């Protein structure tokens, strides 16, 4: 047994950044498909994209940006010893995540109510380009939604660590890494929003 616990903050953050690379490349596969199919079906993509509700998408963009702000501030709060404030801010982030998923639920429900979902009979009757658009839309936002849920779970777990004193003002790399992950979730949405909701003419 070694006498001292090995601590390497730079190493821990380095590892996290490498992991974020892998997440970017995971979504990269979907963005490649988007680019190829956009080049093949430009008109159909515009027609289909204009059927998405910009208010839902825009609202969720604001929600995620706010949540990222909360996370960033929560790290500073913890470093300055304001544990209670840090926990409240993280709670705000998790609430934002819940709001995001609620929005998504209503948005998807409406679309599914119109018979637009992968494998539906209605979707198959649309022109092929529009079918592709909606399929890739569901896959990309679905995978992103999964990441929102995972990110929220990670933040809740971090909150528990802060409460039990495992993460504190002098040892906060876990919170910073959790925050980095949350920013990635935000960042990917920043690309998804214009690609799917703002594609006009």
């Amino acid at each position, binding site marked *: 047994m070694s006498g001292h616990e090995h601590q390497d903050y730079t*190493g821990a953050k*380095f590892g996290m950044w490498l992991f974020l690379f892998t997440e970017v490349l995971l979504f990269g596969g979907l963005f490649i498909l988007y680019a190829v199919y956009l080049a093949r079906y430009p008109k159909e993509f515009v027609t289909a994209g204009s059927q998405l509700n910009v208010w839902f998408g825009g609202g969720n963009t604001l929600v995620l940006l706010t949540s990222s702000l909360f996370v960033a501030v929560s790290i500073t709060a913890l470093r300055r010893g304001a544990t209670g404030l840090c926990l409240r801010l993280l709670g705000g982030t998790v609430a934002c995540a819940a709001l995001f998923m609620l929005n998504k639920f209503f948005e998807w429900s409406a679309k599914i109510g119109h018979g637009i979902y992968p494998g539906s009979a209605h979707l198959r009757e649309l022109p092929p380009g529009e*079918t592709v658009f909606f399929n890739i839309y569901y896959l990309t936002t679905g995978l992103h939604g999964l990441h929102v849920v995972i990110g929220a779970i990670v933040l809740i777990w971090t909150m528990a660590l802060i409460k039990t004193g495992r993460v504190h003002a002098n040892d906060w790399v876990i919170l910073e890494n959790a925050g980095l992950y949350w920013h990635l979730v935000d960042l990917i949405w920043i690309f998804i929003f214009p690609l799917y909701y703002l594609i006009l003419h």
Partner: protein
Amino acid sequence: MTVDHAAAAERGFLAEARRPGPFGWIFSTDHKRIGLLYLWSIVTFFCVGALLGLLIRLELWAPGRTIMDAQTYNAVFTLHGVIMIFLFIIPGIPAAFGNLVMPIQIGARDVAFPRLNLLSWWLYIGGAALAVTSLFTGGGPPDTGWTFYVPFSARTTTNVSLATVAVFILGFSSILTGLNFVTTIHRLRAEGMTWTRLPLFTWSLYATAWIQILATPVLGITVALLFAERVIGTGLFDPAQGGDPIMFQHLFWIYSHPAVYIMVLPGMGVVSDIIPVFARKPAFGYKAIVVSSLAIAFAGSLVWAHHMYTSGMSDLAVMVFSLLTFIVAIPSAVKVFNWLATLYQGSILLDPPLLFALSFILLFTIGGLTGLVLGAAATDVHVHDTYFVVGHFHFTMFGGTGMAFFAAMHYWLPKFYGRMYDKTVATVAWGVIFTGFCILYLSMKIVGMMGMPRRYWDYVPEFTGLNQLATAGSWILGIGLVLMFVNLVRGVLYGKPAPANPWGGATLEWQLPSPPPTENFAHDPVVTHGPYDFRKAGIL
């Protein structure tokens, strides 16, 4: 009591467990224990894969049905491919020997994230368990080949969905290993272990780890999309819904071509480490070998579509990818020439590790050159999807990485078990393996040139002679493998005690006792010379 202590100290990390019995292994975060867990899991899957390969060859003894029907044959060659690719050759050298050796080579006590390292092994075992489960559940074993090409893979009623989940999990395991190694090599090098003093094996792992990090996620999304296509009908690769099957091939090979460098670069690293030791000469062109590793990792990421010349790409794309493919041959050749120059005028000791390393050079060169036949679009059109391709990639993967894996076993196992195998038997086994290998795969290349297509259960009678020759070769190869593994296992269990530095290596692992203690170095080492400076290391 004191005798027990002394005996335990001689057994190093093998005797020091924090938990009793098997739990001391499967929950250990010691990189050496994890390395051995990987090693024996990987060897087990290799043996299963090899057995399936023997069955394939037996079925091809004669045209028509020999021992199995066509559907079983499809499942068997799919399983052979999936096991050999995802469970043997990709994790193979990095996860087993990278874990065992790399932290010691850089003078560290462990990897940067030991618990993550244990999680990688658990994910590997979980993925393997799912892959095995997919054989016996659902609509029967997958029959798509390891490449899972759509549209067949999206429609077949066999259990492809579960197999894609298994591949996703195995990919995640591979990513975590890569991430861990890059961080370890950046952060945990001992004092004086500068980048130009890193052993070439560690350098090759570094280049490999970057490919694992950057390419594997694309495989993840590809198999996830195939899963979605099968389960919820997303149709992104289905022309009826506006999708394009060729996009699956692109995404698949964006990972799977760089993956062949995940497979072969660590093997090159093993050979680069072994040759200077057995030639008693510093590695010729150390920096050129390092740069060529990085160049292969980089250029290898840009050549994926050379698997798709006949898939209906544009002619321009074919020409661009053909040119890029030829560029990869340059750094590969740089390595071969450097190895030969290292051997030149060396004082060569023809021990088993070197024999396997030498066969790597010969077989990989043949495999690489036949790769150029396939990289050139004009010739590829004729030999695409024939046994020539099967011969080619077995030369590079088995003749390359497989031989390097065996070389690594003969080179490093005495270090980690403190026991030496029987060198004479090892040499004989090498000879039998090499002979069987050449008979088996050269026959495949020739029969491929004659036009025999791959993946077929049946063939025209004209090909019978060469197929029987190949099958006979597979038996010789099988006997050689049994001989080698039995000898190694016997050596590990009952062999004579091995000294700390049986081969006269100058890298750090040889300065520790065999087997090394749990935290490797009692005091963090200070490195004062290069990895192949045998004079300063006091070996010459």
